[in-house]
Every structure is written in C-alpha cells, then in structure tokens.
C-alpha cells in the first residue's frame, strides 16, 4: 500500500464518519457509555481488591489483656505467640498509646473526646493489646485457637481475642459482588454497543452503495472497498477512548483523596491515577477498536456484497 492509497482510505473513512454526523456521534456516545462502565468497574474492582489485600496485611487478630496482667506476663505471652508457627508479626500497643492514638485520630471531633471523658469516669476503655498478623490467610484459624487456649485465658479480657477475619470476609464478598455485577453490566453494554455500531455501519454501507458498486466495476479490491468502513469504526473507537479517558481522569482526580480516606488506603492519591489510568486508556482503546471492528465486519458480511 502506497502513501496515496493510505491517504485516500483515511479520507474516505473520515467522510463516512462526517457524512452522517448525528448517527456517528450517537454511535460514539454509546461506545463512551460502555467504555466508561468498563473503566468504572475496573477501578472499583481494583480498589476493593486493593483494600482487601490491605486489610489482609493489616488486620489480623487483636488480643486484649485484662488490667490484672503484668508487664512480664504480657511479654511472655507475646514471646509464646511470636514463636507459634505461621505468625508473621506481632505489635504491642500499651493503654497509653491506644489512648493517644484515639485522641489523635479524633482531634477534630469534640464529641468523641467528650465521650472519652464520660467513659474515663468509671472504666478504663483502653486495654493493653497485641495486633497479630499471619504469614498466610489460612493460618489465622489455628493461631486464634492457640490464643484462645487455657494457656493465656487468665491474662486476657473476656472476649479478648478479636478475630478480624469477618471484616475480610465481608470485603471479599463485596469484591465478588463488584466483579459479578461488573461482568454482567459489561456484557450487556458490549452487546448494545455492537448492535448500535452494526446499525451505523450498515447505514453507511447503504448510503455508499452506488460508490461501492462503481468501485467494484473499476477494479477496486475487496480490501480497498472494506477498509473505509473499518477506518470509520476505528474513528469511533479513538474518539470514544479520548472522551472516556478524559472523564475518568477528571473523576479519579476529584475522588481519589476521598476514596483513600474511605477505604483507608494510605498515599494512593498519585498512585491511583498513575497506576491505573494508563491501563484504563490502553484497555479502552483495545476494547473500542475490537468492538468497532467486530461490528463493522458483521455489517459488511451481511450487507456489503462484493
């Protein structure tokens, strides 16, 4: 293919796009909606997955000691648990540290501090505690059983072992829901997009039937006749990718700090955009082009007699 031919095909494809601008724009719009949904689903999935891993890393088992346990007893318990197979890390938080952390975290919420004062009157709300994480998620079961054994019972508060796996369970169920819903939505919108694009290309084929007939008569190859329709569908994909990416960039930069706080993911702000956005653009581009080429190929097979 020489440069003249390349030029002519691009021009011809653009003419297809421009000649029915209204129809072309609605085809682009439906593709934008689909790409936007796919992008949103991917971002949501990435975020829930990220916070799930994050939770797996951080929240393991919390162990709360009764006030009667001495520093030595706590130290010994800590060493024994540390030695138990499958335990990765163990962090001690003293009463004072727990209190300071609570005050620090709630410094802008006077009511929470008020409540603390109330509690302080008759109880001590912050026990000494250990936070334990395991090497593998599957290790938690046996570690919990070990800590709950009679060996440590006398040092611990009643209900002093808090197994945070429930949170993780809930998170992983959320991840599943996001994934399933995402797949369903994506499938539906991909089908709708292919149908709309199919109709658009069919209309172009109809509008150009005279030209196609003449092309055949003067010896245009099948490839040369088909190319403009494929180029037209690629134009939809490029335009839709551009619009979707711009919208996603805007959305991500507006919400990333809030998402971070909400999901308790630290310092993701820059990472979220830098880490996810380029992939989104590439995925959108490939999805868009694939949808366009599939739709135009089906339309040409059915309506472009060569």
């Amino acid at each position, binding site marked *: *293919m*020489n440069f*003249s*031919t390349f030029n*002519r095909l691009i021009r011809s494809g653009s003419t297809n796009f421009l000649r029915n601008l209204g129809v072309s724009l609605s085809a682009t719009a439906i593709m934008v909606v689909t790409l936007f949904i796919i992008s949103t689903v991917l971002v949501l999935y990435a975020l829930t997955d990220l916070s799930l891993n994050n939770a797996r890393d951080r929240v393991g088992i919390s162990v709360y000691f009764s006030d009667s346990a001495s520093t030595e007893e706590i130290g010994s318990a800590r060493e024994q648990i540390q030695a138990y197979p499958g335990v990765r890390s163990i962090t001690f938080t003293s009463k004072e540290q727990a209190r300071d952390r609570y005050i620090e975290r709630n410094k802008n919420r006077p009511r929470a501090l008020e409540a603390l004062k109330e509690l302080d009157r008759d109880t001590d709300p912050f026990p000494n505690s250990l936070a334990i994480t395991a090497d593998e998620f599957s290790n938690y079961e046996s570690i919990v059983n070990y800590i709950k054994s009679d060996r440590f019972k006398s040092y611990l508060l009643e209900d002093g072992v808090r197994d945070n796996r429930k949170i993780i369970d809930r998170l992983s169920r959320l991840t599943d829901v996001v994934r399933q819903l995402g797949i369903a939505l994506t499938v539906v919108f991909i089908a709708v997009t292919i149908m709309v694009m199919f109709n658009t290309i069919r209309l172009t084929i109809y509008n150009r039937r*005279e*030209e196609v*007939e*003449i*092309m*055949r*008569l*003067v*010896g*245009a*190859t*099948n490839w*040369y006749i088909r190319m403009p329709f494929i180029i037209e569908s690629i134009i939809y994909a490029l335009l839709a990718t551009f619009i979707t990416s711009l919208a996603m960039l805007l959305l991500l930069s507006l919400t990333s700090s809030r998402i971070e706080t909400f999901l308790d993911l630290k310092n993701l702000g820059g990472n979220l955009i830098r880490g996810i956005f380029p992939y989104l653009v590439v995925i959108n581009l490939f999805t868009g082009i694939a949808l366009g080429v599939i739709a135009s190929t089906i339309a040409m097979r059915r309506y472009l007699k*060569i």
Partner: protein
Amino acid sequence: MIKFDKVTKAYGKIAALKDISIGIQKGEFLSVVGQSGAGKSTLIKLIIGEERPDSGRILIDDIDVAKIRSSDIPYLRRKIGVVFQDIKLLPSRTAFENVAFALEVSGEKESKIKTEVPKILELVGLSDKTDAFPNEMSGGEKQRVAIARALAHKPVLLLADEPTGNLDSINAWEIIQVLLKINSKGTTVVLATHAKDLVNSIKKRVVTIEKGQVVYDQEKGKYVL
C-alpha cells in the same frame, strides 16, 4: 482474444444463454444485437466475472474467467472497461474526479492521475467539461465521462452495454463515434445494443442473439431482426 466456448447460463429455469460459442479478435469492433432479454447483458456480465456460467469456458487472453478466483476479479476488471446504460457516475464528483476515481482505487499516484485524466477526457472530447458535475452535463456528455472512466486503466477491451439506451439520436451517434475512435486506436470494443440504425451505420461485425442463441454472425453485418 476473447473466446466463448459452449457457454450456457440459466437464471433458475430461464435460460439466458444456450451453448454459445463466439470468438472475438484483438482490435475488433463487435456489435451484439438482439431484443431485450435476448441475453446481451448476460454475455457482458460473464466477461467481467459478475456472473459465472453454468457450463463452458470464457477465455480472455487464455485466462478462463469462468474459473477465476474472486480475489482476482478486481485485476480482471482493470483490464476490461465497462459502460452501462444507466451511466453510474458519482454525482458529488466532477468529470475529472469521476475518471480519477478509477485510478485511485487501484492505487495510482496523484501525479500520474493529474497527467493521465486530462488526456483521457480529451480523447472523449470533454476537455472543456473537466470541472463540471454530472448534473451540469447532458446525457451524452455524462456517458462520455463514463467511457473515459472505463478507459482509465488503458483496458485491452471496452464493453458497452446499451450505452445509448437513454440518449437521443444525436447524442447516441456521438457516443458511437467515440467508441469507433477508441477502437481505431487499438482497443477491442464490444457493443451490446438494440438500436438498429446505429448498428447499421457502423458497418462492422454483428452478432445477433435471439432467445439465448447466436442466430447470425456477419462481417459488416446489419441488424436483421
């Protein structure tokens, strides 16, 4: 150069051509005459590979068009120019652009198109209509643009299927003169028509088809039906 060898073609139960054998020499001017529905258009469609025969061979320079692959048909059509009764020009393009279109689809460079197209338009006598759109031209002029387009690839063979069908007698006569001029420069011309007076004025070979069969084949023939 073209040889129909016992060619039969039917559309459903209706036989369009029955066991036809015709030979056409290089540089010949052949008129194929007959009433509407006699099989003239089928003959032309078979030559350009638009239709395939049910049996028989159609040889063009020793290539059997009946067996040509679909992907080779575009290249066959660059060797054969075709003109139709309904002209088939693109209304949004000028005379120049309509002729250039044939060269564009085969990937010719712009520079070649710029030098070739005016020469072809001059050959058909339309140098002054280069920038005219089809709706600014007479029927005869439009048909001459179509002939120019058919000649763009410098075909060895020009097929004209009822090219004068929609034209008055003066315009029709002009078209025949253009075809004769093209023929005199060496291009083989096959003219399918039912215009009796025109054929008689040409005084070249005439093949008469009736109900799908050749009934007369005469040098310097006349339309006898």
